[in-house]
């Protein structure tokens, strides 16, 4: 039972990172993109292939995963970010499927549908952490969640974040305010891919085996739902959304009902949850957070001058 709780915490952590990355492009920049699973898969497979073939350091694999995802983000972002709304969604959806199909069919590199097993466990100094060591992984993964949460909070409270929000609200007005909209959209998109790649790398090192089936369109949609359910444009609510959806879909297993309730029930609960949310609270669980500039400025600047 406690093992299962840790497993849940690990899953929530990984999906939180994915939801945060999705929130950056959908919640803040207003781009409807559904290919987070594609970037995630690139991260997963980069780490898996690198570790199996070279037996190198995990942290190098982590970096490589992030960089490959980022490059994929640039590759898809540069041509497709000229599109808006539904058209962008379709283009990115296509990209997600391409990644999955490349992984399934590039047998030599990815072993196709068989997946990759025997990924060496994480080693820090002389300690080896196998995936039975769930408490360690839970902490390890949540450190990343915290890092990305703090980083994104910082990012959106800057000029950069304000530019992204301006693009979401009105792209033409934003460009008339001196914002290079293409540059900002592409960089938000690739940054999001970068973060998703890291999530993938963490997933690979935890599971120690990967198979391509799970990185499909449904997973991207699920990540998008976490953001929408939690509340768009709020980093904290993305984590809440991730926690809610992961728990809902794992709950029957957690309570030991999985033999009685077929796994498809998850999707029924999940769909019901979404419908209820859209009716009663379409803005998500938490609303968009407003930045209180006076507070920010008084706290940082005016108090020391006047107070001391």
């Amino acid at each position, binding site marked *: 039972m406690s093992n299962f709780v840790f497993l849940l915490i690990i899953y929530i952590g990984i999906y939180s990172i994915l939801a945060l990355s999705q929130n950056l492009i959908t919640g803040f920049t207003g781009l409807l993109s559904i290919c987070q699973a594609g970037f995630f898969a690139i991260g997963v497979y980069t780490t898996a292939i690198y570790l199996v073939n070279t037996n190198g350091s995990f942290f190098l694999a982590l970096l490589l995963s992030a960089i490959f995802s980022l490059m994929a983000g640039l590759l898809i972002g540069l041509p497709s970010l000229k599109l808006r709304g539904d058209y962008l969604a379709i283009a990115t959806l296509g990209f997600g499927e391409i990644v999955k199909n490349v992984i399934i069919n590039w047998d030599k590199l990815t072993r196709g549908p068989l997946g990759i097993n025997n990924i060496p466990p994480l080693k820090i100094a002389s300690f080896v952490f196998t995936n039975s060591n769930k408490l360690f992984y839970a902490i390890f993964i949540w450190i990343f969640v915290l890092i990305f949460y703090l980083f994104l909070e*910082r*990012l959106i*409270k*800057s*000029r*950069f974040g*304000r*530019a992204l*929000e*301006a693009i*979401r*609200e*009105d792209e*033409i*007005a*934003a*460009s*008339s*305010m*001196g*914002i*290079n*909209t293409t*540059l900002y959209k592409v*960089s938000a998109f690739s940054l999001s891919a970068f973060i998703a790649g890291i999530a993938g790398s963490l997933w690979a090192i935890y599971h120690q085996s990967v198979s391509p089936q799970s990185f499909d369109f449904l997973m991207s949609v699920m990540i998008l739902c976490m953001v929408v359910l939690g509340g768009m*444009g709020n980093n904290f609510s993305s984590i809440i959304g991730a926690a809610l959806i992961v728990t809902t879909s794992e709950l029957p297993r957690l309570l030991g009902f999985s033999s009685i309730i077929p796994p498809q029930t998850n999707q029924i609960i999940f769909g019901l949850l979404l419908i209820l949310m859209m009716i009663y609270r379409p803005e998500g669980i938490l609303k*968009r957070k*407003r*930045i209180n*500039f006076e507070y*920010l*400025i008084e706290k*940082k*600047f005016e108090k020391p001058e006047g107070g001391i």
Partner: protein
Amino acid sequence: MSFLYTDRIRKEFGGVIAVSDVDFNVEKNTITGLIGPNGAGKTTLFNLITGLENADEGFVFFKGKDITNLKAYQITRLGISRTFQNLRLFKEMTVIENLMVGRHFKSSCQFSKNRFLNSVLCLFNIDKEEKDIYESSMKWLSFFGLENYKHELPKNMPYGKQKLVEIARALCAEPEVLFLDEPAAGLNPTETMELLSIIQKIKELGITIVLIEHDMKFVMNLCEKIFVLNYGRLIASGTPEEIQNNPLVIEAYLGKEHE
């Protein structure tokens, strides 16, 4: 040579010639009006100058530099700001945030020549930078007497105030030329009079103003030079008196008398 001028600029949409070989020029520190019946191509001309549309032919020069077909953000950075005919405020952002976006590229933080790299590096210095952006935005907000609205969402404000916010946002970029697309449309007479004095105050700050307006009294009171467009062509230009007595202008607005 004029401060800002277009040279035989031309724009077609499909078969429709929206702007046809227009020579439009603006002198420094003046208020220039652009009038004409609906669909005459006034907004298209604005869009061509401010980089929202690409010209098919012709040139735009600003301070002796060719700025034809530059991107909108590049033109804004050169010192040309604008407002829009149908408000284009950032609706989910507060008034002060709207203004702070207007200050986007005017950063006090300089680590690198490359703007993008700079904005990333400045993440380490954002508190200081935010303070500067906030304070200079507040300066413009109080210029318009809108301090009380700073945490309001634009959509909850009266239309007249929203229009002022949009002008304030454009001014936050500290432009040399300000383009106003129908600033008085939808305002009541009192608000129009207020706007009139505000525009004069802006001009006194040394900012050149170009405006499109249908309110003739407003235009005639405010502008030193007026250009008249009809069916994409420039049919007249001159002082308000010259325009009022120009038979071509009267014909464009009222139609020709039957003989």
